[in-house]
């Protein structure tokens, strides 16, 4: 077996080597920074690379390890999606609006990662304000898929997923409002988990749609997802939607198996139009793997699936239009005050020049859905459908423990392919956004590679706060299939 370079390690592998003093945190971080130097010009996964602070954090981690104070993330180089506030490091949301914004405080998840001694190597690229499924909506750059550089990495956490897939960090944090962790994880052949709404504090997460947003891990395997999620979970009084429930060590008993589990396969998902036959086949094969592992697989129904996209694309823009009202050029962020004769003109000039096209489109859609005369027909109607979607899942979880489906209808599409057709882009979120509407957890794990060489993801969804069971099912699949070991072969000279 060939020796892995340090940057190729998983979090749990690196942790074992650090504990055995076979590698230092400084060497590990240096290896990742060197990998970034070589690969980043091709992939463009990062908005900001934090070399100097990463080296300092690695030195502090080595000290902690020497003093016997190390935890599972001590000295582990991570990438952070650029909408999570990082004290002293600019947090842009991939927007001109926040291009020079340096938060005076850390998000709750950053406080937790710092207390665990993790190393932040950089801030990852994304769709502007997390609005998009391709990372093409970044005001700075389009991230490329490490498996095929002319293709999108998915979005909105495309930089976070591509950085993990290209070994430019050991793991990362993303955020998921309608699939923004799971879909890029699927397109980049890595693991991505959206926790139950309220499991991870949103304090310091720049808001897109507050009732749907949730921070979660993107990692090289399921064990790492369990380690990272355990570290960032927990109650926080500064987020009024944070839920006060104890946090278990999710990396324990991952190998408990699925013999007592019932897995539901929603017929509305499997019969959906527009699903690539290779994606369909990969998911059908995954069902067989789970059966062989001892799970009971049953047919289930989520009858309101066909209305989920429409309801989501009213609820999310409505919340966004309200949340993004704060960008007015007064307190922080970009201001275009050059030609403004009065305050209102300054607001209008600032917002028109500061937001990109997709953000402006969603603000318009959301403002329309909330405006006088349309509220009942659009926002209220969508919120009622949301209730029906939630009830679909509640009913399903009386007959099964886990729901299995595709993550996205197709593998990664080409850069530019859907850029002019927002509705087509929205429709590709069909399998992921229901979990956000209902608030349940979901995970994407690699389940195949197409004949064109693109990774395909399998989605597993669990009941509220059942992340432990979800991770056990995902781990069982991963270990039985070995799909997580397939990697893109991206090298310095750009050859694949």
């Amino acid at each position, binding site marked *: 077996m060939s020796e892995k370079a340090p940057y190729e390690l998983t979090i749990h592998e690196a942790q074992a080597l650090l504990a055995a003093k076979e590698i230092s945190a400084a060497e590990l971080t240096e290896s990742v920074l060197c990998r970034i130097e070589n690969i980043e010009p091709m992939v463009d996964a990062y908005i900001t690379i934090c070399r100097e602070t990463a080296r300092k954090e690695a030195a502090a981690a080595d000290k902690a390890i020497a003093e016997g104070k190390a935890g599972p993330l001590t000295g582990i180089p991570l990438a952070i999606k650029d909408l999570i506030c990082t004290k002293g490091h600019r947090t842009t949301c991939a927007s001109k609006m926040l291009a020079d914004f340096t938060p*005076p405080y850390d998000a709750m998840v950053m406080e937790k990662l710092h207390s665990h001694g993790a190393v932040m190597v950089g801030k990852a690229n994304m769709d502007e304000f997390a609005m998009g499924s391709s990372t093409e909506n970044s005001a700075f750059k389009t991230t490329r898929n490490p498996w095929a550089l002319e293709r999108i990495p998915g979005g909105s956490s495309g930089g976070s997923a591509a950085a993990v897939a290209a070994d430019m960090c050991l793991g990362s944090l993303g955020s998921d409002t309608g699939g923004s962790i799971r879909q890029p994880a699927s397109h980049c052949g890595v693991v991505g988990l959206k926790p139950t709404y309220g499991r991870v504090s949103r304090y310091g997460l720049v808001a897109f749609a507050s*009732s749907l947003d949730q921070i979660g891990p993107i990692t090289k395997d399921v064990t790492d997802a369990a380690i990272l999620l355990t570290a960032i979970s927990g109650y926080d009084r500064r987020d*009024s*939607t944070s839920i006060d429930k104890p946090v278990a060590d999710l990396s324990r008993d991952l190998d408990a198996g699925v013999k007592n589990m019932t897995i539901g396969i929603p017929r509305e998902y499997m019969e959906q139009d527009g699903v690539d036959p290779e994606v369909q086949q990969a998911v059908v094969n995954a069902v067989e793997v789970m059966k062989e592992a001892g799970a009971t697989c049953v047919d289930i129904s989520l009858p309101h699936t066909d*209305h989920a996209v429409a309801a989501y694309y009213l609820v999310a823009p409505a919340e966004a239009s309200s949340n993004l009202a704060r960008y007015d050029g007064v307190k922080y*962020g970009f201001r275009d005050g050059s030609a403004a004769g009065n305050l209102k003109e300054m607001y209008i000039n600032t917002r028109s020049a500061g937001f990109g096209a997709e953000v*402006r*489109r969603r603000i318009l859609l959301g403002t329309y859905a909330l405006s006088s005369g349309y509220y009942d027909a659009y926002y209220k109607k969508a919120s009622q459908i949301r209730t029906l979607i939630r009830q679909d899942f509640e009913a399903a979880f009386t007959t099964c423990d886990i729901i299995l489906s595709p993550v996205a209808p197709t593998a990664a599409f080409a850069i530019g392919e859907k850029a002019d057709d927002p509705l087509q882009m929205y429709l590709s979120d069909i399998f992921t956004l229901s979990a956000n509407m209902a608030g349940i957890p979901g995970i994407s794990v690699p389940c195949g590679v197409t004949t064109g060489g693109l990774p395909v993801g399998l989605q597993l969804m669990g009941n509220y706060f059942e992340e432990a069971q979800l991770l056990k099912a995902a781990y069982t699949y991963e270990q039985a299939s070995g799909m997580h070991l397939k990697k893109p072969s991206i090298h310095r000279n750009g050859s694949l």
Partner: protein
Amino acid sequence: MKITADEVLHVAELARLKIDETDLERFAVQLGSILEYVASLERVDTSGVAPTAHAVLTRNAFRPDEEHRSIDRDRALENAPDSENGFFVVPKIIE
């Protein structure tokens, strides 16, 4: 469902956005096709269904009414586009 250029401009005004000529046509077409798609929700019977605003939280989150230190004024002003004497500076409001 079609949305007219005037409606787009009205909504843009509400959202404090300015849409120039070239974007107006494109946005009207794109928003029109999205609204046409979401109009399918009309067919779903939601009579008697309570709306969901938050999927998990069912109660208000109360906390003790205690003082906590917040960021100080200098730090709060650090990212301001314009500030003076401890205040945010904005264009003239009163004529």
